[in-house]
């Protein structure tokens, strides 16, 4: 396994998350050992290596000869034939920098850790993973690859973030939908504070391109609970006009607006058969990822 950033990856957490493989729910282009359904049959034949058997692996790819020699189950893997491609789309806009007093880290840090962990898990399963960082334009794009050293490239991209600007999710999604290649899983990590209609239009473009889309919405607890009491000047993190308000008097209205927005986003996801999960930065990342991955098994 390649070296990884100790800031973004937690070895113990990853060890525990290995039990939850990221499986494609839909047909993806390319299959190594039948874990991911492929539209193409007999596509890959060149043996690459063995790997440990995990419950749920297709028994057709068990190396019975190796079992006979070692009395252990090994699964045969074939090089360049990983059909699952996972695209990690990380929102690095200014709004992701928000971190309230009660949160241990910013939304961006939380999303980076989540993305790094997912990348590791995908690579660990010999699948391919790519990375895109964006705000109102694509800041970095790492083409999908399945070799373990590829993780370094991904981590490097996440560690070297440029000056960020405002979010513009819809256009970015449209752009990426055209640029991402083979069908796979597109995991988007963002706070999704943008126009819902625009977001949904972009997401539908992914779906049109037969991508399986997963939305991981990262929110700070303060953005959900709105716990402020004193009169506060809210400064926009993405060049929005400042708002001075008495939080106590608008708390209820804000919560209503937030819930309405979340309901709209979730409803749109359901309609487009898009997975949606909400991650709170004050909750354990491991639990959040484990919960989500387990729901896919």
């Amino acid at each position: 396994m390649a070296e990884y950033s100790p800031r973004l990856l937690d070895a113990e957490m990853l060890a525990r998350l290995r039990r939850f493989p990221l499986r494609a729910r839909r047909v993806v282009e390319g299959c190594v050992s039948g874990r991911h359904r492929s539209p193409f049959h007999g596509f890959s034949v060149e043996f690459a290596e063995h790997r440990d058997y995990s419950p749920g692996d297709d028994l057709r790819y068990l190396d019975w000869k190796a079992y006979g020699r070692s009395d252990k189950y090994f699964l045969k893997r074939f090089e360049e034939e990983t059909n699952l491609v996972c695209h990690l789309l990380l929102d690095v806009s200014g709004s992701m920098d928000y971190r309230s007093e009660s949160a241990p880290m910013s939304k961006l840090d939380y999303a980076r850790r989540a993305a790094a962990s997912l990348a590791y898990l995908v690579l660990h399963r010999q699948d391919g993973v790519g990375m895109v960082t964006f705000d109102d334009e694509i800041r970095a794009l790492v083409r999908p690859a399945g070799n373990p050293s590829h993780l370094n490239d991904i981590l490097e991209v996440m560690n070297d973030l440029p000056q960020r600007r405002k979010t513009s999710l819809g256009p970015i999604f449209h752009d990426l939908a055209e640029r991402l290649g083979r069908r796979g899983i597109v995991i988007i990590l963002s706070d999704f504070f943008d126009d819902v209609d625009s977001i949904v239009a972009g997401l539908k473009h992914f779906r049109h391109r037969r991508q399986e889309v997963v939305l991981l919405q990262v929110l700070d607890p303060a953005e959900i609970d709105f716990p402020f009491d004193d009169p506060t000047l809210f400064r926009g993190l993405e060049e929005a006009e400042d708002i001075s308000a008495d939080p106590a008097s608008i708390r209820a209205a804000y919560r209503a607006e937030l819930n309405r927005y979340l309901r709209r986003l979730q409803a749109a996801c359901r309609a487009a058969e898009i997975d949606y999960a909400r991650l709170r930065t004050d909750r354990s990342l491991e639990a959040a990822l484990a919960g989500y991955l387990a729901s896919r098994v």
Partner: protein
Amino acid sequence: MPAAAKRFIMPYAVWILFALGWTDPPMLGWLAAAAAPILIHLFSRRRRRETGWAAMELLRAAVQKRSRRMRFERWLLPAVRAMLIAIVAAAAAGPYLGSTSTASSPGRGTHRILLFDCSYSMSYKPADRARFDLAKERARLIVEASFSGDAFSLAAMSRRPRTVLSASLDREAALRAIDDMRPSEQPAELPPTVAVLRRIIDDAKKKHPLLERTEIYVLSDLQRTTWSPELSPSARAEFIDAVKALAESASLRIVDVGGPGADNLAVVDLRPLDPPVLTRRPATLRVELKNFGENKIAKQNVDLLIDGRAIDRKKIDLPPGESVEVVFSHAFDAPGEKSIEVAAMGDRLEIDNRRYCVLSVRGEINVLCVDGRPSGKRLDGTADYVALALDVREPPAGDAKFNVETADESALVERDLNEFDCLFLCNVARFTDAEVRALAAYLQRGGGVIFFLGDQVQAENYNRLLCTPGQGGAGGMKILPARLGRLIERRRFRLDPLGFQHPILKTFRGRGQNVLTATPVFKYFNLELPEDAETNVVLAAAGDPLIVERPMGQGRVVLAATAAEPDFSPLPLWPSFVPLVREMADYCAAGRTRRQNIMVGDRLEMFVAPAAAEASAKLVAPDKQVHRLRPQSLGDRALLSYGDAIESGLYLVKFGSSTEDERPFAVNLDTSESDLARIEPAELRTETWPDVGFQYRTHQQRFDAAIGSERAGGGLHAFMLCCALGLLLSDTLLSWKYGRK
């Protein structure tokens, strides 16, 4: 402030501020405090915290949705609190309806009458300032707090209440008049003051008919002697009716500048014990001091000064509430008029710590005995026994006290009666108009006249010329203290000395009682006493008055209903006759200086020779100020007079160049005012002014407009407090409601 509030609330707020009257306008300064909640609110907004925020669109949507309500709620609490403070401040300023003074033209506001209690108890200094100064300070505040349309009157409550300023619209003039107010040296009298107030109100109505209301501020120490006057039942009922009428036409407000526990020491009396005072005989001066307080006064110095020189000092202790008599003895070397002063200084009301007296010290007492039936034989004339009794030499010196001259009745017009200290008129048959005129003038100047009757007396002539005012030459003066009735003869009866109360009988007190009561009197004229309090019965016989006396002018008249000759009655032969005659002479002769010992407020008068009237006369007051006196010619004499002696002390009238042409005057206080006992407000309501509506405050308290607002249909003050209470409750509920969000 929102534009709507500016448009609708501000005009009304300004109208209310100016349409209402305020009893304590300086309190409106607290209205500025109403800005505090607004300022705190604005300040807290400036001190808001800052934070970055991602979900700005959601926040903006929430803010927009609640923006109007937020703005309302944001200002609601500060507005409620500001109103709360403003209403409390306004209520504290004492609002009342009906006075649109500031907006009105002059003479349409409130007529404020400031009545100063000018009795000398107001000079009492409980601390560094006298009560009168506190009253002036309070009066200034009342005037300064008034509005432009108000009118001001000032009145002084004293023995002779007076109007100082009548319904003036000039506030500065009122303030100047207040500054010029001084306490008098007299007690104050309430009943005549009510009449003065009535007059002020009536005059103001004529002068400024548009004045809306009247407020009377009585600035007093509520001294009992002033506020609880001793009146007859009818006078009291009349007084209370007058006060009620006053209270119906004006708002009565009593400002109490006094306080409990005021101690005071006063010299209440100073007089010679045995007048008249003669040279070479020790004169005894009796001084009476009274401790009006509740604490004992120890080792009080009492100083005697004669003609300005310290003569003697005594130390005394005065138990609380008691009088102590101090006696000074002094022998005068030379005759003349002496100025006596006694001082007992050292308390908080110094004005009554001094007392003055003018003594006429003589070498002897000149007596003229007018014999109605003169005789060449010894002890045959009707005045011989009197002259003999007066000529008795007194042990141990053996000096003659009296210089007696006997003459017939023609001396009454032919002699200058002013040469004599007293006259004995014995068995004078009848009087002419000229004689009566001479007697009246003599009495007017302080002479003493003693009548002994007899068989020649024509009662009708006596009664007509000496007993009827307006008849004869006495003008309006009634000379005899009683009318003469029929002659009564009785064989034997005892004299009744009436307890030896009269000073003429003082020599008989004790061992001499029997000598007097056993004196035989067989014949006497029945005396018909007038119904006045001035006639005193000295001695009675079988229930009838035998000797009576009364003051006449500045002098005294004694009338003995019997004769001074043994043919008429054996009285002259009895041992009691000599002391009785001498005491009568002493008593009547003492009146020569009575005119020179007067009370504050009395007129200072003296008669001088016509020649002296042409010279300029001067009066030197106690404060050493010199006043010119203009003599008034009265024919055979001239009268020098000086207005009202308004200050106590020793005055000196100079009507010539020599010291003979000087005459001292002693002016003393009426010390009834020295008793500083107060009447309590509750007593004032129940006893002095029952059923009279008035407000009472101490000088540290402010008046609310209770009476005024009630008249205006009011209770405005109470209404404002209710509003404040409601706002307080609203504030609590709003804080609870918005504070928990």
